């Protein structure tokens, strides 16, 4: 008798919880971004962001300690790769400098560099306080929000290059959609040749594999070439990102893949798995002033 009651109660509790979960799922999908559940999430973000900020500071030494072990483990291989990269970059810089100096486009590029200075876009420094543990959501939360001038769709960079854009914001926190998310897309170009494309995730959750897609036929980028943001090049395809922010470098350019899928693989400059300090460009100038050089 007692067992039967217990079983009945257990099933009732389970049924109730499953029902609640399904109602939540249905309601969440049914409502828009301004709905009640979304508002609860934003409210929780606003309420708990100070706690998150303090807690993030508290656990940072431990995080750094674990990161140090990992870094030490990988340091040897990374050092070798970096030395190779530096040697290659020196050659590339020397080559580029010579070509640029002799090129008639030098003045235009210098002018572009001058007018597209990122420091004129009111950058706001921020710390990453939360990161999604799941492969499905490539997002991080930062400790700056609308109260600091951050608004939705502001580009976010770190010392290495572009990392994503702001998708949600409350007074003192924001959520950033990283380049590795399936919903992320950036109009881009090969820095040297100006070949246009569209950067999107290659393998979900893989921070080292992005795709430069929609390449024009017959324009095969070379491995090692730098990919930068294109900015707005057409009113039909507006971009959230200012032009000429470094994104990554072409790592694999298979002529067959370019012919069939019109895409090459790139590796982002920014290490998207170990983000700490980032910068939000709160007043991005997204429009290019002229044709892509």
């Amino acid at each position, binding site marked *: 008798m007692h067992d039967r*009651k217990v079983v009945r*109660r*257990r099933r009732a*509790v*389970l049924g109730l*919880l*499953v029902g*609640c*979960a*399904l*109602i*939540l*799922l*249905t*309601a*969440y*999908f049914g409502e828009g971004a301004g709905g009640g*559940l979304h508002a*609860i*999430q*934003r409210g*929780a*973000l606003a309420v*708990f962001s100070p*706690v*998150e900020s303090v*807690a*993030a500071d508290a*656990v940072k030494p*431990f*995080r750094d300690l*674990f*990161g140090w072990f*990992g870094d030490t483990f990988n340091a040897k291989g990374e050092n070798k790769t970096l030395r190779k990269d530096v040697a290659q970059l020196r050659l590339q810089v020397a080559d580029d400098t010579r070509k640029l100096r002799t090129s008639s486009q030098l003045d235009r590029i210098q002018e572009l560099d001058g007018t597209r200075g990122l420091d004129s876009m009111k950058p706001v420094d921020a710390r*990453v*306080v*939360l*990161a*999604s*543990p*799941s*492969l*499905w*959501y490539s*997002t991080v*939360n930062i400790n700056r929000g609308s109260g600091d001038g951050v608004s939705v769709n502001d580009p976010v960079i770190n010392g290495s290059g572009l990392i994503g854009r702001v998708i*949600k914001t409350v007074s003192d926190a924001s*959520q950033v959609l990283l380049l590795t998310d*399936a919903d992320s897309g950036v109009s881009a170009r090969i820095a040297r040749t100006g070949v246009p494309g569209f950067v999107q995730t290659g*393998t*979900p*959750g*893989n921070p080292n594999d992005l795709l430069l897609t929609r390449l024009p036929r017959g324009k095969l980028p070379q491995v090692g070439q730098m990919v930068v943001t294109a900015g707005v090049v057409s009113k039909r395809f507006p971009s959230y990102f200012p032009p000429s922010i470094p994104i990554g470098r072409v790592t694999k350019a298979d002529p067959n893949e370019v012919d069939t899928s019109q895409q090459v693989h790139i590796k982002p400059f920014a290490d998207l*798995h*170990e983000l700490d300090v980032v910068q939000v460009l709160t007043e991005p100038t997204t429009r290019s002033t002229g044709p892509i050089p």
Partner: protein
Amino acid sequence: MSLQVNVPLVVRLVVLAFVMVLLQLMFFAQVPVFGAIADVSPLVVMAVGLLCGSMTGASVGFAIGLMVDTALLQTMGLSSLVLMAVGYWSGRLREARDPQGTLAPIPLGAGAAAIATVGYGVGQFLLGAVHPLSWLLVKQTLSTIVLDALIAIPITALVRRWLTPVLPEDPRRRRRRAYTTGGLSPLQKA
């Protein structure tokens, strides 16, 4: 049928859930170990289910899932559903088999992580996620399961240490303790 609420246990469960969710999001999610990220939420839910039974396990799973979804602005309800399954499964395991071996948390942790990661993935596909099923996804899922299995013992021990003072005395456990500390089983007494 009177429903007695163990208030100290509820308070400790709430504190445990809150602290574990904070640690998960602010520490474990940001410290990749050999490329894998540990997910302690299913382990905590599994440990609670093993200690407190299926109803408490399922309820704690639901609550932790809700907190994770709210904090990460994810689809609300999916993590709750998955972690509730973990809590219910581990609770039923306790009620039916009561696994007590020292190494029991390892396979149970792997099971909990497998239910959570695979369940979450299946849920995402059902909800219309456009990710292709890639080798990387499989590799990450497997490495998370292995990593969770490895850290299941300390996590279970921590949860046990935190909850034991407020758990009601379990007759089965008391009986087992008596055998292992020199007491005679009823068979030996006969």
